[in-house]
């Protein structure tokens, strides 16, 4: 099965304030957006499990005009805390790249 890295145009992550991270999946076109939107591997539950956060803290936004799926959740390690190794959360998107997208 193809994974997110094979279908998405561009995926990025960034700190949204010191306590949140947000991941933007740019799908490029409506057909790909539809596939990504429906992928179980990108649901709030699946993302929560992958990143080890609670499912009710994960917010998923379908930004249809831009064909973007946006996923935000509180960071387990706030920005700059003693064991944080990615201050700007710039690499948080990488584990999602292998999420299966039917």
């Amino acid at each position, binding site marked *: 099965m193809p994974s997110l890295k094979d279908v998405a145009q561009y995926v990025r992550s960034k700190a*949204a*304030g010191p306590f949140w991270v947000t991941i933007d999946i740019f799908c490029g076109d409506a057909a790909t957006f539809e596939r990504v939107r429906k992928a179980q591997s990108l649901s709030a539950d699946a993302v929560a499990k992958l990143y080890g956060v609670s499912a009710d803290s994960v917010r998923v936004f379908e930004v249809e005009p831009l064909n973007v799926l946006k996923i935000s959740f509180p960071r387990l390690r706030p920005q*700059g805390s*003693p064991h944080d190794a990615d201050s700007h959360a710039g690499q948080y998107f990488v584990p999602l790249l292998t999420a299966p997208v039917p």
Partner: protein
Amino acid sequence: MSPSRPDACRVLVPSGVLGSGCPQAAFDRGLTLDPHVIAVDAGSTDSGPYYLGAGVSKMTRKAVKRDLRQLMVGRAKLGIPLLIGSCGTSGTDAGVDWMAEICTEIAAEESQSVKVALLYSEQDPERLATYLAKGAISPLAPAGPLTAETLKACDHIVGLMGFEPFAAAIEDGADIVLAGRTTDTAVLAAVPLMRGLPVGPSWHAGKTAECGGLCTTKSRNGGVMLSIDAGGFDVEPLAADNSCTPRSVSAHMLYENSDPYELREPGVMLNARDAVYTAIDERSVRVTGSSHVAMPYTLKLEGSGAVGYRTMVFSAISDPKIMAELDRFLGRLRDRLAAGIRSVLGYEPDEYDFDIRAYGANALGQPGESTVRPAPLEVGLMALVTAPTQDMATEIAKFSNPMLLHFPLNPDDPMPSFAFPFSPAEVELGRLYEFKLQHIVSISDPLELVRTSTFTTHQGERLAVA
């Protein structure tokens, strides 16, 4: 941009942050577009808790002075206000004073006599404790309730001002307003809001331009001009050869926002869900349909406090035998270090923190497939010691040096030596700070927690304003 609307208020935004620079040609073109105000933000929490905790600027003084001079010279040509938010990166009182000193120097060098208002929003923890005691401070997700101890544990606390303190300073005749911590949007929305332009479009315009040229197609080519009117707002790049497109403008709502539609500001919630982005021509965009909901008036608080001192040792290993069994090697190394630190230095593991990050082998601790990765060719080992004092952190790091240099994979292996890049190997990183607040304080007057001071520059001196 649309044909000039009689009711419009135009905001020249030179860059996303003061100190990052705006090409002179782009800025000069902006001045010809008849702006009512020049406004820019000078800070952020984006670079971590150090800048607020230590109260120092991330930007160098020379870069800030270069940019501030450009803006002050431009401002003087048109006789319009210049607003700078979040002075000194974190917007502490020291950041405002630092900017005021630079401003005074430039005024002397450019022979300008200007009225400068300083807005301070650093907060006294004891005063905030009285708000806490009366239940006026609430957490924002994912924080829990605040305690008085947490307030005391912060080295600096700032409140993010809304637009009202800027409006009051301009009404009082300020030419230049240098402010402590401000929401990125408020500094840009201040003049449109004080002129009575609609609330939703004014805040949405501010949000669109908060990162300067990031809402354009060539984001490193200078800032933008906003034009807010009764029906919405227009945005165009300052540089003639740059463009805003409906996509570049609408996509900016995604950036660094956990919610792509709603943005909470002091006293208001912006809602951009029904906003419509339309190309006016090849390089400018009109935005309509931004709305808002009035909210109780709150200031968001940011606080940072020291949690210890750090010393780092960085080394590298590429021996294939160790690369093949890196996890076992690191497990044995950690155990050996803890045992030695206890027996020789007398420190129990809960008195310090020893973090070894294997760069090249999932140092970022990312979830997922890390366990099935192939053996790395080389890893960089960042050994980070955190302790209550710098001396103790360095003592532990120095004690660990022989093991970080020579620790064998198996007890009977011949003694290896690893690759240290520096002599001395220990790098003192100073104080480690942590963001401690994610809370809002309810206030009845937007200026309740803001202090204002005004002066006029005169030949390098500051004259008090009665």
